[in-house]
């Protein structure tokens, strides 16, 4: 009763950047991503 039509690969998430310090991380989250 359940027919499989297709199986596909999900969208892959791209790796982002590495930050060097906690200060840089907080700055990116506040000013670049705007999530905190």
């Amino acid at each position, binding site marked *: 009763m359940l027919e*499989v039509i297709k*199986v596909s690969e999900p969208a892959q998430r791209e790796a*982002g950047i590495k*930050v060097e310090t*906690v200060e840089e991380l907080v700055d990116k*989250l506040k000013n670049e991503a705007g999530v*905190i």
Partner: protein
Amino acid sequence: MTTLLIAEHDNKILNEANKKAMDAATKIGEEVHILVAGKDCSAIAEEAAKIAGVSKVLLCDNPTYEKHMAESYADLVVEVSGDYNAILTTASTTGKNFMPRVAALLDIPQISEIINVIDSSTFERPIYAGNAIQTVKTISDKKVITVRAPSFQAAGDQDPVTVENIQNSEDKNLSEYISEELTKSDRPELTAAKIIISGGRGMQNGENFVLLEGVADKLGAALGASRAAVDAGFVPNDYQVGQTGKVVAPELYIAVGISGAIQHLAGMKDSKVIVAINKDEEAPIFQVADYGLVADLFKAIPDLNAALG
């Protein structure tokens, strides 16, 4: 083509996930009704009546349904299901408990954890821990579906529609509620939180989660954990994010001391922004992180706490 959405709630609060499940419901059927079953939950029904897209709310207020026990709940849903083409609920702990029972009683296959609606009988759902997306089509007249809420957009508000009281069926007393032990927390619930900070095996022990609590409180975040941390007994298993835990998609997910096993990624990779803090720069978590910090968490987390003021 009417769809019935079974509301997820705890008799006090209507879970935000219902608004996302509503998005799926409106894509399946032209008309959507919501069933609210529980004890003293008329306020929940009134709230559900304001979710954009609903045309009627059914309220079954009865002590039998207070704890959403699968046996009595499924009987109620089956009884109400007669006029509906599709029956939906969120793929929550409760939904995953009673919905398979509904499907079995109706003798139709359940379509589990859909992440997209192609048309009223064709759906996408993740398989192999999210490593493949399967498109399935059903030929049943009736459909029983659980919805992976984070994959959908929350419905807006509307002027409230009618709430209709319905009578419950006789309880067959197949199961009895004895007691429950819940983790008490003032922090937001994992699946509803906008920010989540999770710890893994790298936390080393349960006491060290205090470090994350400080940051969580400053950010208004929920606390999560990887399966490794739960299995090691650091935190209770309702903290677990991943394939066998909760599937979350917050605005910000901070993974601390988590290597990023595929089963963990399956539960959080739809988060908007992912931050990874891990001392092993080869850890797979960095492959999905927007911002990676290679550092010892026992230094980085106190620093982060201080930096957040």
